[in-house]
């Protein structure tokens, strides 16, 4: 079993491992900020701070043979599904150790062994593709499912509506997860969308739908399991709206000065890491000492990852010419 699959298996089995993965994502994203400031990373990046429960909850209930399409805000989902921090950070730093060899960048992470399609930098871009993956499962009669993760802003783009309609009439084994983090780029969702509960949009496609507390990993697991089971058993698609909150700005350039006063602080009281910690302490799985050790060990781990990625070579000029077309080979 590959190291990546082992990482995936860990979060599928153990609540403490799930918590550790959430800490990994948090630490990872915080390191990214520093690396930008030091000039080690260029371009842009979109952090998922505050959205760790959704990423890890999702990864914990899917099989590696299920397919996930996600977005440019994808570091957390990639790590949760099992990509190594080196593969993710290496890609963000444009190094050969990255999952795309450094030609993709922060917005384009993938690993097909773990079921992660290349994340898309186009709003709604991954949704029809997830439906297509589900179509292949339906035709080939497997019981795998496809999951499309997208933001609240995507519910206003044509691809969202076209894909929901198509998935519904074809009864595809696909789960649509709207990660409603309250902001579409720089705009609060209420300024661009006439309804607060985005999952209601599925009604017009006769698709089952519900919202869940995206800050609470158990709620994510319960909701995603319900939808995935429906899809696996031939019951068709579901639209889930995970209510989350983006602790950071839209991208590196965005200080998020448009937030109403106190909004961030209110959501931070429901920080998914804090909530998970409380649950694990209550169940006796963790105590303050163990938590402190997990956090300090993770800091050390991620610092090592940074050093490894910094030492990784730059890609060769030849690498930009690779993987544009499939190499010619004998026909079928």
């Amino acid at each position: 079993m590959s190291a990546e699959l082992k990482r995936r298996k860990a979060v599928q089995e153990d609540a403490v491992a799930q918590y550790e993965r959430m800490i990994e994502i948090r630490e990872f994203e915080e390191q990214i900020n520093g690396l930008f400031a030091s000039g080690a990373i260029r371009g842009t990046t979109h952090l998922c701070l505050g959205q760790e429960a959704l990423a890890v909850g999702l990864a914990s209930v899917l099989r590696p043979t299920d397919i996930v399409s996600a977005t440019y805000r994808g570091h957390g989902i990639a790590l949760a599904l099992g990509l190594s921090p080196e593969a993710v950070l290496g890609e963000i730093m444009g190094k050969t150790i990255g999952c795309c060899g450094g030609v993709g960048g922060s917005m384009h992470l993938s690993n097909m062994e773990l079921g992660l399609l290349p994340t898309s930098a186009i709003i709604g871009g991954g949704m029809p593709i997830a439906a297509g993956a589900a179509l292949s499962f339906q035709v080939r009669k497997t019981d795998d499912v496809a999951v499309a993760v997208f933001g609240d802003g995507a519910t206003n783009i044509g691809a969202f509506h076209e894909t929901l309609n198509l998935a519904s009439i074809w009864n595809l084994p696909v789960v649509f997860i709207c990660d409603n983090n309250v902001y579409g780029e720089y705009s609060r969702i209420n300024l661009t969308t006439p309804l607060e509960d985005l999952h209601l949009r599925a009604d017009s496609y006769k698709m089952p739908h519900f919202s869940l507390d995206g800050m609470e990993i158990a709620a994510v697991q319960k909701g995603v399991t319900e939808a995935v089971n429906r899809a696996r058993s031939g019951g068709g698609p579901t639209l889930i709206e995970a209510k989350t909150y983006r602790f950071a700005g839209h991208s590196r350039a965005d200080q998020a000065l448009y937030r109403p006063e106190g909004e961030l602080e209110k959501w931070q009281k429901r920080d998914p890491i804090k909530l998970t910690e409380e649950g694990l302490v209550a169940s006796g799985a963790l105590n303050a000492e163990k938590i402190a050790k997990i956090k300090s060990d993770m800091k050390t781990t991620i610092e090592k990852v940074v050093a490894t990625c910094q030492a990784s070579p730059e890609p060769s000029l030849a690498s930009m010419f690779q993987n544009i077309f499939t190499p010619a080979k004998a026909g079928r």
Partner: protein
Amino acid sequence: MGTTTPMRFRQAIVNALADEMRADSTVMLFGEDVAEAEGPFKTSEGLLTEFGPLRIRDTPISEMGFTGAAVGAAIMGMKPVVEIMFMEFLGVALDQLVTEAAKMRYLSNGMLSVPMVVRASVGSGLGFGCQHSQTLENWVAATPGLKVVCPSDAQAAYSLMRASIQDPDPVMILEPRILYAERGDVDTSLVLPIGKARVLRKGSDITVVALGQMVNVARNAIEKSGLDVELIDLATVVPWDRETVLASVKKTGRLVVVEEAPKSGGWGSEIVAAATSELFSQLKGAPFRITTPDVPVPYSGVLEARFVPTADDVARQLTESLKSGTTPKSWWELEGLK
């Protein structure tokens, strides 16, 4: 000639939008985060404050919807300017621009005009990866009924914006993102008509035609080469200025086009084809193009810097072509890559 004021490229865009909005109450601007946030690249700073929410509007992430709304508003007498944050986001709205807007006049027997402007940031060099770094002139340049311009400095950004808004037909403005922060002197009384190229440097050895961020690259290359090159900023891709370009090629007998676009299917092929077929007997050497390779824009900083034509490489090719009389090889051919 009026007085000039130094300003950044993005400020030139803001000023042109503001001046047009002051002059014409039918001009309006909409797009993602252009109002409250004043544009992701700060190209609408202060506009909401001055012109209010009726004319400066944030949109949902719905490019097809708001580009199409611009078509309808334009038909009915408004002059909408829409902003597409990254050129690639036009993909989902292309239908409204090339299939609807560009055909309205034709299909209404000349009854309708569509005086709309679509602005999009384009180009590589900032590490945004292959879905946010293309120039994509070729998506729009083969659409009769649609004009396409691309400014290379603050003056062109200002003057072409005003000309585009005043134009009675749909105009696409490709704004090289890497230039937004560049400073330049702007004369607000200077008119740059759509369809008119700018001769930025007179010369007799070679005619170099460039566009957008490649204009600076070509200018630096010419300085490095020490050659007497005539530099033309094409400025308008459709309809391109045949008169200025062909007159220059007639004079120099040589043509090199510098493009930030893949080798295959670029706008420069059109220029080279026209010069070759119309001035064949007067050419002293084969016209050629310096482009990016036929690959997606790579993310890595090292690769992205090599991907796009550089001043050093353009200077090498200009010098070699003049010395040897043959067409120089691209950097990737020299590296044995394809």
